[in-house]
């Protein structure tokens, strides 16, 4: 029993990431009809927003500390971040410590900007081209973005720790009455899951309760009709692309403490996210979220030692297997609508 | 007993009874039109005949054999060719290639690997295709890209592609929908010519009364998924029930 709960919890954080990326993918696919292979790169760019911000925050100047000496007896030179000068040492240190959550504020405008730029500059011209062309051009874009990041940040992983307050683990088992230590769960993963739920909830609420969202939902159902009503659907779709980019970016921002960002993390997540979208049902937002969590949890169950002993390698392939089975038995995916990409 | 016999065919989509107890018999070598207001179930019926849909009840017999449960390509091989509402041709290919494809399909059946033969060296196929093109009055367009032709020519090509297979039953789904008057008249002339020159049965689903009354020998009026009347064109004209069905739609 404790094992099962542990695996479900373990699946939640990865599932959250899958769900968030797949949500953006589905939004873009459902509204614009574009298959965006660069969406993983947006996740990656989000993660690098964190890296950038923490580098900005730690920009330093050299100060000679007369009270301390180095081993030659000269006054010690220390790097002092500018931020210490502005806010005082303790506040400055706290800001640097909280760089990851602070990056959210930084990433939102950046990611929306990137998303809008991408839609206006490139994707817009591919609305009426075949899906194969859309896949190819966004695939090319993904390579370019990835290589630019690699050029500036290098090929190695860059650690981005969580704030001090969230380091460590929560003994979930003890809290609900199992043996102490049976279910240990890092605090940051709890934060990530909650953050994902809030973000998903915000997107759904936005689509459900605002006029803007209503038009977008109508557009997802039938683009031409909405166009005929005289609503400028194109501009709304541009904004939608920006939002989808921001969702993917925020997923990346908050994922950095779980998995130190590197330039190819986008591609790694993209392949699985596509599988998630297809399993959930092309064009179905709840489907994408559901499938994200289901596959994340499935993956963590498949990584249990007992399961691997029984079926070696299953943890590597379980998501793909699930996708194949679902596509063949339920071609529309878990919650797919009729008529969307049915060919 | 006609060449196509539809018995008690019914089809539901969820709560909607699209077809209910349709009985219909198309006599061999006749032109039979199926008309009816929008939503009368014409397209559903047609889809049941060609294997796209399977009716919930009843039977569809073609030349004494059931077509139910067979896939579209198998039904085509039984001798039923279908013309679509918007011309379905191979836009990227040349007109001659368009014409060769159905002939290859007829000769080779559902599947045969001819991966190393040269298609242009299959003399009999090429000649046959050229001959149909001449019949269709399109010989001069043989090298053209099919997509670049006018809508009327596309329709002509599509009908030619069906005829190239020498089907016993030609099903036409609103063949003149969205066409200019001149193209419509050309299509009517073409169909008349086909009817006169060939041993072929034509079943036509049509909205345009002008087309129906110029061609049909027998007409079935469909309304709300069931046949209202079946009679000759003269008797259908001014039939009170037909009027009611159409006027009811208009009101």
């Amino acid at each position, binding site marked *: 029993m404790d094992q099962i709960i542990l695996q479900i919890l373990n699946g939640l954080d990865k599932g959250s990431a899958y769900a968030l990326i797949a949500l953006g993918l589905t939004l873009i696919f459902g509204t614009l009809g574009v298959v965006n292979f660069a969406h993983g790169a947006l996740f990656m760019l989000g993660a690098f927003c964190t890296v950038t911000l923490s580098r900005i925050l730690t920009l330093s100047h050299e100060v000679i500390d007369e009270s301390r000496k180095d081993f030659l007896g000269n006054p010690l030179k220390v790097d002092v971040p500018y931020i210490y000068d502005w806010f005082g040492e303790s506040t400055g240190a706290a800001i640097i410590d909280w760089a990851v959550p602070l990056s959210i504020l930084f990433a939102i405008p950046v990611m929306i900007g990137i998303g809008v730029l991408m839609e206006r500059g490139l994707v817009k011209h591919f609305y009426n081209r075949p899906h194969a062309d859309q896949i190819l051009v966004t695939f090319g874009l993904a390579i370019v973005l990835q290589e630019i990041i690699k050029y500036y940040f290098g090929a190695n992983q860059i650690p981005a720790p969580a704030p001090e307050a969230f380091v460590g683990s929560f003994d979930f088992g003890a809290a609900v009455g199992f043996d102490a230590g049976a279910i240990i769960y890092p605090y940051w993963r709890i934060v990530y899951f909650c953050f994902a739920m809030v973000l998903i909830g915000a997107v759904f609420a936005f689509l459900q309760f605002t006029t803007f969202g209503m038009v977008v939902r109508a557009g997802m159902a039938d683009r031409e009709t909405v166009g005929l009503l005289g609503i400028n659907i194109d501009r709304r779709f541009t904004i939608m692309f920006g939002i989808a980019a921001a969702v993917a970016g925020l997923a990346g921002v908050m994922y950095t403490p779980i998995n130190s960002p590197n330039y190819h993390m986008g591609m790694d997540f993209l392949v699985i996210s596509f599988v998630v979208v*297809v399993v959930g049902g092309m064009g179905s937002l709840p489907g994408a979220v559901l499938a994200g969590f289901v596959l994340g949890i499935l993956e963590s169950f498949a990584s249990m030692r007992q399961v691997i002993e029984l079926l070696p390698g299953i943890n590597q392939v379980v998501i793909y297997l699930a996708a194949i089975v679902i*596509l063949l038995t339920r071609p529309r995916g878990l919650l797919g609508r009729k008529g969307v990409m049915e060919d | 007993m006609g060449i196509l016999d539809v018995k008690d065919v019914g089809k539901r989509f969820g709560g909607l009874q699209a077809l209910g107890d349709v009985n219909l018999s198309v006599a061999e070598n006749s032109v039979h039109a199926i008309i009816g207001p929008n939503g009368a179930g014409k397209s559903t019926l047609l889809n049941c005949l060609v294997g796209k849909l399977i009716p919930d009840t009843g039977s569809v017999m073609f030349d004494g054999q059931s077509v139910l449960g067979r896939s579209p390509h198998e039904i085509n091989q039984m001798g039923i060719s279908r013309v679509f509402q918007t011309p379905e041709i191979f836009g990227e290919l040349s007109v001659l290639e368009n014409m060769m494809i159905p002939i290859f*399909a007829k000769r080779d059946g559902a599947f045969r690997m001819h991966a190393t*033969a040269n298609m242009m060296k299959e003399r009999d196929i090429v000649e046959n295709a050229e001959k149909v093109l001449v019949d269709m009055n399109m010989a001069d367009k043989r090298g053209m890209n099919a997509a670049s032709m006018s809508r009327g020519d596309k329709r002509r090509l599509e009908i030619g592609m069906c005829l190239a297979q020498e089907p016993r039953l030609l099903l036409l789904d609103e063949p003149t929908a969205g066409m200019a008057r001149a193209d419509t008249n050309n299509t009517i002339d073409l169909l008349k010519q086909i009817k006169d020159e060939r041993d072929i049965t034509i079943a036509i689903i049509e909205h345009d009364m002008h087309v129906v009354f110029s061609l049909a020998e027998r007409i079935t009026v469909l309304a709300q998924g069931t046949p209202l009347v079946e009679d000759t064109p003269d008797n259908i004209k001014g039939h009170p029930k037909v009027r009611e069905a159409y006027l009811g739609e208009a009101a």
Partner: protein
Amino acid sequence: MFGLDKKDTSLLLIVAALVALAPIILNPFPEGSALAQFNAGYPDLMQRFVIFGIFAIGFNILFGLTGYLSFGHAAFLGAGSYAGMWMMKLLTINVIPAIIFSTIIAGVISLAIGWISLRRSGIYFSILTLAFAQMAFALAASVLTPITGGETGLQTNLNDPRVLPSFLGGGASADGNIPKPSLFGIEMSASFELPVGSWVWTFNWGYYICAVMMLLAFYLAIRVFRSPFGLMLKAVKSNQQRMNYTGLNTRPYMLACFVISGMYAGLAGGLMAAMDPQVGAERMQWTASGEVVLMTILGGVGTLIGPVLGAGLIKYFENIFSKINDNLLHQWFSFLPDGLENFMVTIIHPFIGKGWHLTLGLMFMGIVIFLPGGLVEGGQRIKAMFKGKKAEKATKTTPAE
């Protein structure tokens, strides 16, 4: 000739001539000159040209004829390589069984994958093939280690059994070294160097064996493109709906096409193993599938010569661009004033050396955006420009393939 019409025959002969003379043509710059680094006429690179040519030709049979975009062809390439390696480990160091077996294995695997994937079309098909390829990659790197060598990969060893008699290439080599892949005693790495003036031309056995295979593959592809089978596939691409109602069962056609395409990939994989007897799982990764897509697009989808051109160009640029470094750039721009020289080097720096992939990605986007027909279309446009408007019309109605 060869059952082809005049135009195709001349295309085949031109390609054959170019391939045969490649060691000369690709070495236009004299040895030791500043431009010698742009030479491509050395065995290793030329082998890659033709092997990836085969891979791309096969991919184009599927994508070009049917429009089904597979993102999993690297799996067949990798499977072919592993199969070839095992033949060279178990049976004989002779490359013939390796090549045959790699093609067969890839065919069997593509039959299984195609049978499932082809139930869906469009983007679903792409994602299914991608899923299968990623699965194959993950398994090859982990559980299948006994077969694939896992992360270290598979290579020939001194103590491999090689059960065939030694005159057929079995057993260990006489000199106590690991035997090198060979064809009846002729080693694949064996070359014959011919210095002419200040040029050195290298004629390599392995290259010519690959070249012969590529010409065969190319010839077969022309036959397929011109066959009734090919016509049916083009028809499926153009209008699957019409095809269903024309009495054709599209599934077996598509499956046959998928398997042929997979076997081409397997052949390429087998040749790769035969030229350089070591395989790692990364050969199956989906970026490798993306690369073959790119080659085909770059050259021209659905054209005969396009994929070969695309494969050659990408492999050439990969090689050249990754070799260029800052020193070289400084040499080139040394004629400029100092400030400008440094500026130019800084600008170009991200695109060369390790930045080659950036150039690749930009090329990819550029081609899809501006030249969806690839180099072949580009060539036609240029030709049309010279011939005036009349010629342009002609190329539009009869796209050369």
